C-alpha cells in the first residue's frame, strides 16, 4: 500500500465521493418519486395505462443497469436527448430504481388490511380521504425496510456510473490507479471504502426500521 499516493490524490477522491453521494441521493429521490407515481397510476382503472406501466417495470427490471446507462448516454443523442455523463447517470439511476420502488410501494399498498379500507369507507370517508389518511400512512410505514434495502442496492449501483465516465469515486480511483500504476492499492482501498459505506447505511437503516417497528407496536398497543 502506498499511503502517500492516496494522500496526494485526496482532493480528487473527496470530490469523487461528493459526486457519488450527489448521484445516489438525487437518483434515489427521483426513483422514489417516480416509483410512487407509478404505483398510484397502477391503481387507476385505466387498462392501457396499467399495461404501459407494467411494461415499463418489466423493461427496467429485466435489463441490466449498465445497458440502460449506455442507451441513455450513447444512444440518447440519436433521439435528440443530449445529456452530460452525470445527468445521464442520475437520470439512469432514477429510472432504474423507479421500477423497483414502484413494486415496493405496490406491495405496501397491498399489505393494508382490506377491513381498514372498508371501515374507513363505511364511516363515510371519501375515496381520496381513505387513500391519504388510512392507506398511505400504513403503506409507507410497511415499505420502510424495503426502501432502505433498495437504497443500499442503489448505493452500490453508483459504481457502474464510472463506466460512462461520471466523475464519481470509482472513476477518480481508476484515474489515480492509471496515473500512478497502483491498480491493486486503489481497488483495495475502494473495496474497503464501499464496504464501510454500505455497512454504515445498513446500520442506520436497521435503526430506522427498529424505530418504525417500535412505533407500529406502540400504535398497536394503543388500538
Amino acid at each position, binding site marked *: 500500500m502506498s499511503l502517500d499516493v492516496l494522500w496526494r490524490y485526496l482532493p480528487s477522491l473527496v470530490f469523487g465521493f461528493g459526486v457519488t453521494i450527489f448521484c445516489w441521493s438525487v437518483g434515489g429521490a427521483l426513483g422514489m418519486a417516480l416509483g410512487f407515481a407509478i404505483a398510484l397510476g397502477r391503481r387507476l382503472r385505466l387498462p392501457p395505462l396499467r399495461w404501459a406501466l407494467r411494461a415499463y417495470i418489466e423493461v427496467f427490471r429485466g435489463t441490466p443497469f449498465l*445497458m440502460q446507462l449506455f442507451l441513455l448516454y450513447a*444512444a440518447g443523442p440519436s*433521439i435528440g436527448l443530449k445529456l452530460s455523463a452525470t445527468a445521464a447517470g442520475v437520470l439512469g439511476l432514477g429510472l432504474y430504481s423507479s421500477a423497483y420502488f414502484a413494486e415496493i410501494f405496490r406491495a405496501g399498498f397491498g399489505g393494508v388490511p382490506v377491513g381498514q379500507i372498508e371501515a374507513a369507507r363505511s364511516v363515510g370517508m371519501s375515496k381520496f380521504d381513505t387513500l391519504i389518511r388510512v392507506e398511505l400512512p400504513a403503506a409507507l410505514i410497511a415499505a420502510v425496510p424495503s426502501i432502505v434495502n433498495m437504497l443500499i442496492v442503489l448505493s452500490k449501483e453508483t459504481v457502474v456510473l464510472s463506466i460512462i465516465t461520471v466523475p464519481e469515486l470509482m472513476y477518480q480511483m481508476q484515474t489515480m490507479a492509471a496515473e500512478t500504476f497502483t491498480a491493486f492499492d486503489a481497488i483495495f482501498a475502494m473495496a474497503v471504502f464501499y*464496504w464501510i459505506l454500505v455497512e454504515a447505511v445498513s446500520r442506520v437503516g436497521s435503526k430506522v426500521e427498529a424505530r418504525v417497528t417500535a412505533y407500529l407496536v406502540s400504535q398497536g398497543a394503543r388500538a
Partner: protein
Amino acid sequence: MKPEVILRSFGYLTDAAGVTIAVSFAGIFIGFAIGALICAARLSRRRWLKRLGGAYVSVFRGVPLLVQLLFIYYFLAEFGLDVPAIVAAVGGLALSSAAYQAEILRGALNAVPRGQEEAAVALGFTGLQIWRRVLLPQALRISVPPLINEFILLLKASSLVSVVGIAELTRVSMNIASMTYRPLEAYVGGGLFYLAINLTLAGFGALAERRLAAGDTR
C-alpha cells in the same frame, strides 16, 4: 431507428447471449456450492466458523460487484498470476452470488418449523437422516423461487464482466454500436435479448412457485 441494424447483427447478438447465459450459469452453480458451504459455516456451532461466514456475507454483499471483479482481476496479477479474463469473470460472479445464495439457503432452513426437527429426533432419526429426509427437501423447495430470482439478478449483473473484456451481450452491443455508429439500435437489440432471457426465467420462477405451493397444500 433502423431495425435492420439489429437484424443484421442478430447472429452476433445470439452468440453473445449464449456467452452471457453460460457465464451466468457457471456463476450460479459455483456460487451455489460456495454458498452452501458459507451457509453451513453460519449455522455451525463453532463460533469462529460462524463469524467467518458472517464476515464473508457482509463483505461480498457490501462491496459492489464491479469493484470485486476488478479486484480479482488485478489481485492475482499482483502475484504474477495472469488469470484469463473468463476465470476472473466467472469467479467474481460466483463469489458475489455465493453470499446472496448463502443467505437464501439460511433463510429457507430457518423457515422449516422447529417442531419437525424435534419430531424427527423423537422418532429416532439420526442427524444425517434428519438432514436428508426432513430439513433439506423442505428447505430446497422453499429456496427455489428466491434462487431463480437470484439467477435473474446475476444474469443482469453479468453485464459488468464486459469491463474485463468478455465478449458477452453488453460488450458485443458496445462493439456493434461503435462499428455501425448506431448506438440506439445496438443497445435496444442487446436489451431485447436480456429482456427475453429474463422474462423466460421469470416465467419459470412463477411456474415453480405455483407448483411448489400446490405441493404445500397436499
